[in-house]
């Protein structure tokens, strides 16, 4: 469980940490996050030297390598502004694991300070921006898949669904065993491919059974995994990052 977090008033500026998956595979989700934030009157700073939070190395046990990568991100956010991460997984890494990763090192204080300013995008939109959404899209039925890191590491099971529920024309349906992992788990999908495949198979079936043709997530790892499974099977179900979905329907 995450500790109780006190949310600041809406700031003038924020940093965006775009995450490596969004950078390389789903950049439009990052742009849409910027657009959503700017529409709220917030200036978005995007440090060009950002790369990856270091999580893949961290969860693989490569602590030194993870620390080096994480250390390279710490200096990118010198101002006092919140750091918005459009992913519960990378957000959880930076908020929860950075302080552990640097415990007992010279960077401990800086890592904790940065960790304290990390907000997952949907968390920030709901709790800091109190986002008001005017839905301009067609009626549609969608499923939300909240990532395990957003749900359990960051304690954000409700913010994604809350944003979707605010869209008047969107019917939000829940899949069976909604809180169960999709089987991605970063390098888990590579190290235990068969188990991971069994998990994503069940997840796609559960989503398909709702009758929805679109699933929304705030984590690109899950999207790549679930969406990749649907695509390989030639199914019509598509995944979309919540930032893109919100922007597309309200702009």
């Amino acid at each position: 469980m995450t500790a109780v977090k006190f949310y600041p008033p809406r700031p003038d500026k924020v940093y965006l940490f775009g995450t490596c998956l969004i950078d390389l595979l789903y950049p439009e989700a990052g742009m849409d996050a910027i657009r959503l934030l700017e529409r709220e009157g917030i200036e978005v700073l995007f440090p060009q030297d950002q790369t990856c939070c270091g999580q893949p190395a961290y969860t693989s046990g490569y602590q030194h390598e993870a620390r080096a990568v994480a250390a390279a991100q710490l200096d990118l956010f010198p101002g006092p502004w919140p750091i918005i991460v459009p992913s519960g997984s990378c957000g959880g890494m930076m908020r929860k694991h950075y302080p552990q990763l640097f415990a007992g090192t010279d960077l401990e204080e800086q890592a904790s300070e940065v960790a304290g300013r990390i907000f997952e995008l949907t968390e920030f939109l709901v709790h800091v921006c109190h986002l008001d959404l005017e839905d301009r899209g067609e009626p549609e039925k969608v499923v939300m898949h909240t990532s395990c890191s957003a749900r359990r590491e960051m304690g954000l099971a409700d913010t994604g669904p809350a944003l979707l529920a605010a869209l008047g024309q969107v019917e939000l349906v829940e899949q069976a065993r909604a809180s169960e992992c999709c089987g991605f788990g970063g390098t888990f999908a590579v190290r235990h491919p068969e188990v991971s495949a069994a998990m994503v198979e069940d997840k796609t079936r559960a989503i398909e059974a709702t009758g929805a043709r679109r699933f929304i997530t705030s984590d690109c790892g899950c999207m790549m995994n679930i969406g990749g499974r649907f695509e390989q099977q030639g199914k019509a179900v598509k995944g979309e990052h919540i930032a893109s979905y919100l922007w597309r329907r309200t702009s």
Partner: protein
Amino acid sequence: MSEQTAGVQTFTPREFHRQAHDALGNPQIRANFRKAMDGLMAKRLDSFDDWDLETLRELGANIRLRALARLPDLLEKLEANCEANGIKVHWAEDGEQACRIIRGICEDHGATSVIKGKSMVSEEMHLNAHLEAAGIEALESDLGEYLVQLNQQTPSHIIMPAIHLNTDEISEIMHDKTGTERTRDVDAMTAAARQQLRERFMGAGVGVSGVNFAVAETGTLCLVENEGNGRMTTTVPPVHVAVTGIEKVVEHLRDVPPLYSLLTRSATGQHVTTYFNMISSPRKEGEHDGPKEVHLVLVDSGRSSIYQDNELLDTLRCIRCGACMNHCPVYTRVGGHTYGTTYPGPIGSILSPHLMGLEETRDLPTASSLCGACGEVCPVKIPIPDLLVRLRRESVGEGRGNVAGAGIKRTRKEVAAWKGFQWLATHPAAWRAGASVAGRLRALAPTRLGAWTQHRSAPRPAATTLHALVKQYQAAKTDKEER
């Protein structure tokens, strides 16, 4: 491990991948576990209707932490108070020594037949095989354990040993091994097993049980069970031997109710179990029943080395409820035998490396998507995902090096890959250039990515990275403002 049960299917943690492959391809196993785990998850959730779950977990975690903080003291206190109560206390450094102690007690009493209540520590040390090799028959009396023993298997779950079997399979086993008439009537099968076991209780020279909580301040052994076999095991034979790991000690009697509440609710969704036994002495003068001797065997088996590490120490908080298994998406799909260890599932993956070394168990710490479900339900708040990561560090030689087999998974190829990742992710200009090239060559991106693309389509790099898109966007904005 069931390697010593000759002639039957054997499982070992070294073969996790092959065993997982087999289990995933077995629709019966898949269906049995899915159904059972779904039921257990629902029951657990329903059972916390009278207690605030989080308050109780916090309390449970603190009770266990307090006990572990004072473990050496409490063990001495437990020993002194047990001895004062007339319970003989034995210390065993490893399973082998514990087996010898128990065999010795049997031999002292000329016992050729032992009846057993459920005890995972006895499974861990392969007590049955040890006794049988010495000509002493050991019979399991917990229904699930009994069925598993009849079928020459090992438990697939720490609370529900035969959870991998369905009604039809159980009926078949009972028919084959005991001549019971085939039936789908669970009550009829239970009654038959009860009849078969009842006779054996009467003839057993020694009863062996586990312990759920050993109370230091009173020298009391608490035993949680549903079938009454635990009470029979600890009261009918003339000698009772309780065997347990050293971490099961709690400080006060008042620590027991919260832990008991957490245990039964987390394990089976029960508010209370049918039986709760508190054993505080052998039969006293003038009493008409109960064993004439009670022994307590306290087993270390690597636990004190876990205790030396202030992170890994949390592993010892475990009260063996099995909730982490019930909620684990990996365990639910591959079942307990796949792990090849006495303790399967998430708790097994953080405990077994200490009991068996990382060389044997190298694939267990990675057999988790780190989804966090185990940590979320753990009644004593063991940070299981963090400990899995810690053991991954140990496996690749980047931990503290105090787990046997540390560094076993470190390969030159993987180190090179992570060093390469590190270099790229700490050189932003190279990162941007590399990503940009990947985007421009996206048409050439591989459509086959090993195991990933056996079940999913390959992700394709975007034509333009976020870094580049942001730059264009900001340039366009500045342009507009200037105009």
